[in-house]
């Protein structure tokens, strides 16, 4: 395998709150290869969004602070780079789109001007910026780009607005696109359009895409590899097919069993993970999943298990669990 385009090691981000320091991202490691599609899966409070905001350098400061780790883009450690350099990288090499397109759009500015601003801030001339804006609006499937360019965000539907945001993120042809639940607020037929759009653009531009999502169906549809996050840690990683076929973390196994069948006449009681995902202010000790886990042993209560590659696999599949799947009771 070639060197990863994005490499994250021991990333630890805390929130400074009145009550003290809250560790939300707790030593996260992962690599993204060029052109790869990876899903970062987690539920609310898992730390998945703050992880990727920290990678982007867009974590809200205060209250968030990266206290440890490395974020390397093509070998360069961004956490030790100047803010000026970080701004250069953002947009040009790393870009992010959010669930709510209005997070990235200024409601009072024509969308063309907003995209052009990104381009001129990265050294493109006005003429280049205008030409690229028209081109990228057309690449994301917005009809009549010349008219769209002169429109305001509110003049677009939700799906079209998300396309505008994707156009803005891709204006500089980044190497990595981070897509944070970009389809969650959209109808399924529009969600499918956005998924197809991003996959097509990925093929033509060759960028890597990290989908942040809670939807296992979306993961199965788009991702080659999966990172499962729970309680601030990556708890399982592997190719999508090996993780879905034989999950090695009880949380992943529970999530997969909790989803109703989308086809066929089998309708059984759904598997129910007891309890609810933990709040970052009250992450449990040891393995954060232990209070909900049917397979937990004493060790789980006070020791966080390391990521473990088990025998018989391809070496790409790892999980942070003290108990091997063959010893699970559920």
């Amino acid at each position, binding site marked *: 395998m070639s060197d990863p385009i994005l490499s994250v090691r021991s990333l630890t981000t805390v929130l400074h709150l009145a009550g003290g320091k809250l560790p939300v991202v707790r030593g996260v490691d992962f690599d993204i290869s060029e052109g790869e599609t990876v899903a970062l899966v987690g539920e609310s409070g898992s730390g998945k969004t703050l992880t990727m905001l920290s990678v982007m350098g867009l974590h809200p400061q205060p209250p968030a602070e990266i206290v440890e780790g490395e974020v390397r883009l093509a070998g360069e450690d961004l956490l030790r780079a100047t803010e000026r350099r970080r701004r250069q990288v953002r947009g040009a090499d790393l870009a992010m789109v959010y669930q709510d397109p209005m997070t990235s759009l200024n409601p009072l500015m024509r969308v063309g001007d907003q995209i052009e601003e990104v381009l001129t801030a990265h050294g493109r001339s006005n003429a280049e910026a205008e030409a690229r804006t028209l081109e990228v609006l057309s690449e994301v499937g917005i009809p009549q780009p010349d008219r769209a360019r002169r429109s305001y965000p509110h003049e677009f539907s939700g799906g079209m607005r998300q396309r505008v945001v994707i156009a803005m993120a891709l204006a500089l042809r980044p190497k990595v696109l981070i897509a944070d639940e970009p389809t969650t607020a959209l109808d399924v037929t529009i969600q499918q*359009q956005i998924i197809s759009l991003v996959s097509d653009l990925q093929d033509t531009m060759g960028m890597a895409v990290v989908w942040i999502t809670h939807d296992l169906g979306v993961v199965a549809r788009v991702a080659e590899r999966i990172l499962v996050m729970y309680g601030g840690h990556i708890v399982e990683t592997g190719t999508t097919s090996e993780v879905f076929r034989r999950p090695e973390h009880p949380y992943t196994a529970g999530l997969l069993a909790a989803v*109703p069948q989308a086809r066929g006449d089998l309708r059984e009681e759904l*598997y*129910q*993970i007891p309890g609810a995902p933990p709040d970052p202010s009250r992450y449990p000790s040891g393995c954060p999943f232990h209070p909900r886990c049917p397979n937990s042993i004493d060790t789980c209560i006070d020791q966080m298990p390391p990521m473990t590659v088990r025998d018989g696999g391809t070496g790409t599949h790892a999980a942070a669990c003290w108990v091997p799947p063959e010893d699970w009771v559920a």
Partner: protein
Amino acid sequence: MSILSATDLVKRYPIRGTRQELTAVAGVSLELGRGETLGIVGESGCGKSTLARLLVRLEEPTSGRVILDGSDITSLSSSELREVRRRIQLVFQDPYASLNPRVTVGRAIEEVLEVHRVRSEPEWKSRVGELLEMVGLASTFATRYPHQLSGGQRQRVGIARALAVEPEVLVLDEPVSALDVSVQSGIMNLLGRLRDELDLAYVFISHDLSMVRHISDRIAVMYLGRVVESGPWLPVSDEPLHPYTMALQEAVPTADPEAEAARQVAGVVGEVPDPANPPPGCAFHPRCPLAEEICVQVLPTLASLQDSHAAACHIAARRAGQPEATLA
């Protein structure tokens, strides 16, 4: 006999500052048997939430009728409505919005008993405990405040409040959509169990076809204010007749990478049209891969095409050997 039926329900809203009207529900008829679950699936703007509010008469229909156990609830006075609300209840997507943050869970349930004069005051406390246990919460939850609950626990409280009046019908509007995946399954299982134990009938409304097919006996698919397909859950979900349902089913990804890799998803073009300005003919025709001239001109009617499986589609009707509509 049906416990709940709706006949040709229409709801139009005036558009402020204009003389135009927006038709949110454009003539929906449905039947719900005792103990039965009717799933209603559709995307935003299809009118499913307005329909929910019409069924429990939180909104007045522009025309059409809702019949609950033989009596027309669309013509009742507000005092008579209270009796109706004891028999049919609405559960919302976000119970947080309907819970007063300063009122304990126990008091919030008690209020319902008080307003509807269910049982006598001395029994309330123990009844609150019973209701909480019925929805899978310890009776000690009665002393907690809404902010001390997780999303799933709040939805359980929402369900407990709805059950307090001992209704026969629950209208559930996106009851699990705001919840985490690992919590959704618990609520779905709870709804299934309560239905069996209390012999409840449900109208289960969601944008999520996989949840709807999981719990429903029959499914109605809505698009732009109309039912475009309805029938038993399995054929509607897995062998749909209407091209919109086909598109919906195809767009829903399944948590199975092998199946997903094998699928070629064509997708459907365009977006849901503006309900204030619907297309002529079949409202789906601008997005439909099968559309012909007739679809642009003539609104198809919902017709039974096979074994109580109905669709409102000219092409599906022709394929089923039904007489064809003709151009004017």
